[in-house]
């Protein structure tokens, strides 16, 4: 009796996933966005608040979190919501807003590559002004202000 009952119980137990203690791990690759937050001094914005807004409802936070020690934050946009994703990073009243356009790639003519990424995300944000250009702009403003001062000072002291 026991000879037949014991193997049956063991086999029955293997078929009950509720009582199982094993896990099955796997992985797959998926396109994700890495946000890098730094102060303009180069210092990373560590542990800063991050709020992600989806294009469908930009008034409601789609995801919240915080940057790591290096000022980085990762998220995977919902492939069903294409458009301008917005990421807000803030810390102590400082921060900013980043807009990331997420679209689909141009349709593949062959159409037989299901493993291809289903989202098209720019590799980096649009280039900002170079430091030299900013310096040139600042010098122009200062020159304009000094020139204004000199012009009106000369007018004031001109003989009537």
């Amino acid at each position, binding site marked *: 009796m026991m000879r037949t009952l014991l193997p049956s119980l063991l086999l029955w137990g293997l078929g009950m996933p509720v009582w199982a203690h094993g896990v099955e791990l796997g992985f797959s690759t998926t396109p994700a966005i890495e946000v890098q937050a730094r102060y303009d001094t180069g210092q990373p914005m560590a542990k800063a*608040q991050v709020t992600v807004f989806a294009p469908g409802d930009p008034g409601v936070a789609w995801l919240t979190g915080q940057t790591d020690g290096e000022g980085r934050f990762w998220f995977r946009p919902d492939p069903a919501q294409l458009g301008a994703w917005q990421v807000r990073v803030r810390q102590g009243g400082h921060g900013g807003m980043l807009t990331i356009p997420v679209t689909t790639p141009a349709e593949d003519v062959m159409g037989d590559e299901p493993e291809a990424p289903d989202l098209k995300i720019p590799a980096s944000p649009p280039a900002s002004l170079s430091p030299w250009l900013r310096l040139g702009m600042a010098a122009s*403003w*200062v020159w304009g202000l000094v020139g204004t*001062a000199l012009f009106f000072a000369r007018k004031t002291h001109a003989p009537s």
Partner: protein
Amino acid sequence: MHLPDGLLPPSLWIPGWGISGLWLGLNLRQIQHRGDPGRDLPRASLLTAVFFLAGSVQVPVPPASVHLLLNGLLGVLLGPWALPAITVGLLLQAITFGHGGLTSLGVNILIMGIPALLAGWLYRLSRGSWLGAFMAGAVGVGGAVLLFWGTVLLSLGDNPEAERQALLLLVLAHSPLMLIEGGITAGVIGFLRRVKPQLLP
């Protein structure tokens, strides 16, 4: 002390634009009533350049960075011209360096402008004393920090506790700046009194 775009809700930055615009309009009218605006314009223009440059130089102090404000000095030396000077300076800083946003410009004008006004009053109340000049410089920074703090507390984001802690560190980092700007203001006033007293109000 520059609030960027995207942090403040429209319920804060729209009134900020309205109040600062109204104040600026009244201020310009006051300047016009004083007669001959060209007389004070050179001084206002030069101090706008100084304000623009001083606010653009950032010194890293965790968790963010600290820069000179000089709004107290402008309040003492420019009187009613301080507000237009601060407005132009903040606009140029936002356009050139991204220090502060354009939507938040109205709030930033109030954060810098109100303490500048108080600093000017304080200096005149002290009858132009050295201590009054020092206090005016310190009040300019202290007032701006308090207003910045209060404004951010009105919109803390999704993790209020983390934001409060970061804000507290930022306020503490600006405490030495009160002494520094008090000293700068007193030094500039003392220097002008010896060299060119007609530039003093």
